[in-house]
């Protein structure tokens, strides 16, 4: 317990920043839910396919504006992970305390787990709660469908945010261990995190595209993901496959996190402490 308190104390500024960010996002989420409730108030009960007079336009406008919130939640998850991961090794080396710290610790990997695990648990719990909040916001913005049957804001809400946070943490750790300096590690980690986000989304959509259904003359079911095949003909993926997409993205993010964590650990074990 005392080791965990020390580790959390060493990361107190980063955790404080993450906490402030989480509070701000929660506040914005609350505002969106309230505005959505106000927009659908003329129609008590669940919205049917043909929604009430005058509800569609304000709700659509709110959905369009909410894209920024979901993007901010995604950026927060990655940034929180990077903020915790980068200074673990980089700060120790830059401060000049690494030589003494590595010598005193039973083993470098033990030192790493003592430093990293408490803060990682805090960030994972925070992003898990954020994932639930973002799913709740998505549900309030499209009450007729529900958050787990629509592809709206795919990759920007739900349990995938935990995967992003842990992947960001591993990226930060690896970059910090490689450079031994906070600033260059942070800049590279930010770039790699952006590339990871792009790659994960592309892979997930590619996976779904491989089994997309042709879109006939009827409108696609609500919550579907609209794509097109190589001939340019419209296809769609029904919203019922949203859970599959989230599992794929989260699994890939966690796989990246584990591999980069192993790589970072390997670099740490072999690295000179200066």
């Amino acid at each position, binding site marked *: 317990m005392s080791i965990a308190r020390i580790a959390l104390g060493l990361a107190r*500024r*980063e955790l404080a*920043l993450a906490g402030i*960010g989480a509070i701000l996002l929660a506040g914005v989420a609350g505002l969106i839910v309230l505005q959505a409730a106000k927009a659908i108030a003329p129609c008590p009960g669940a919205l049917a396919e043909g929604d009430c*007079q*005058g509800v*569609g*336009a*304000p709700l659509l*406008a709110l959905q369009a504006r909410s894209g*920024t919130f979901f993007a901010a939640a995604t950026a927060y998850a990655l*940034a929180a992970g990077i*903020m915790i991961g*980068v*200074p673990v090794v980089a700060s120790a080396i*830059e401060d000049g305390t690494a030589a003494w710290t590595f010598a005193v610790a039973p083993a470098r990997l033990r030192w790493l787990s003592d430093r990293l695990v408490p803060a990682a648990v805090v960030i994972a719990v925070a992003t898990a709660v954020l994932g639930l909040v973002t799913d709740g916001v998505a549900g309030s913005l499209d009450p007729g469908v529900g958050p787990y049957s629509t592809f709206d804001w795919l990759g920007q809400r739900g349990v995938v945010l935990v995967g992003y946070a842990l992947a960001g943490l591993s990226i930060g750790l690896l970059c910090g261990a490689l450079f031994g*300096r*906070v*600033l*260059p590690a*942070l*800049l590279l980690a930010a770039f790699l995190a952006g590339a990871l986000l792009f790659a994960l989304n592309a892979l997930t959509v590619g996976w779904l595209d491989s089994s997309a259904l042709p879109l006939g003359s009827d409108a696609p079911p609500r919550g579907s993901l609209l794509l097109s095949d190589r001939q340019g003909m419209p296809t769609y993926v029904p919203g019922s496959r949203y859970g599959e997409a989230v599992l794929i993205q989260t699994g890939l993010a966690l796989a990246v996190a584990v591999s980069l964590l192993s790589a970072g650990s390997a670099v740490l074990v072999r690295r000179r402490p200066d």
Partner: protein
Amino acid sequence: MGRGLLLTLWLHRVSAVTCVAAVALLSIGLIGLAGSLRSAAAGCTASDPANLSDACLSLSLVGTIGDDAVNRLLPIVGIAPFLLGAVLGAPIVAQERERRTALLAWSWSPSRTRWLLASAIPLFALGLLLSVDLAIVGDVVERAHAPAIDASRSLANYGDRGPVLVTRFAVAFMVSLFVGTLLRRTLPALVVAVATGTVIAAGLAPATAFWVAPEIVAGPQSPIEIYQERMVEPVYVRPDGTRLGLEDGRAIDPGFDNPALGRLETYAIPGSRYRDVVFREAAVTALLCALVGAGVVLALRRASP
């Protein structure tokens, strides 16, 4: 003075090299895009008018070509000044305090303000040069995107090109410097600086509509006129003279011909006011820079090394 300049750039070489490399790559990519847009537009001139491609059709009807690529890449130029400001400005004071070299550095210098000027000016100048490059490249892309339109009389892609990028970098740099002076660690300073820059960027985007008074749009407009101007949200003017916002009106009746709502008036800022908008935003951002700069000096004087 030259040695001092080189020393400052050496001390902050990571930030400097990263920014220069990023801007260079972005500039090369965008100049390539502008070249391909110009070639495509030239090809449209030689095409058979009865058999135009989608791109040439867009050029002939709306006056623009390559909308998809430009809409994806040009916004990166718009956010780049804020990122440059954060990366160059935040570590100046924060790094000295984190490495515990501030005591030595500040005691060797005649005053902390002199030290700050010596440290900040080279990086500020570097950032200004990079912003000027981005401003020029953004304009080059816009002129290739809309070849028949005078970019200096158009508000299209206003925040993603032109002199406004330089003034926005200045504000972002000063705010990041202030954040870095307050926080003792480089990493939190960078994160807060980026977050603050994002908020400033988000605030400046709709502020364009406030620098000059919008004018009422009388009669139908051509697609080119619509492209050049900056639309402001229309309002309903009721029979009793009161005004109702568009969303409130549509919540009452989604149609546009309800007599109780009154007539719908559309407002826009014409493209010809581009220079006025740029100058007024520059004046406000210069004032903001001065205020924040004063805050930096005060915070630095009170900061413990």
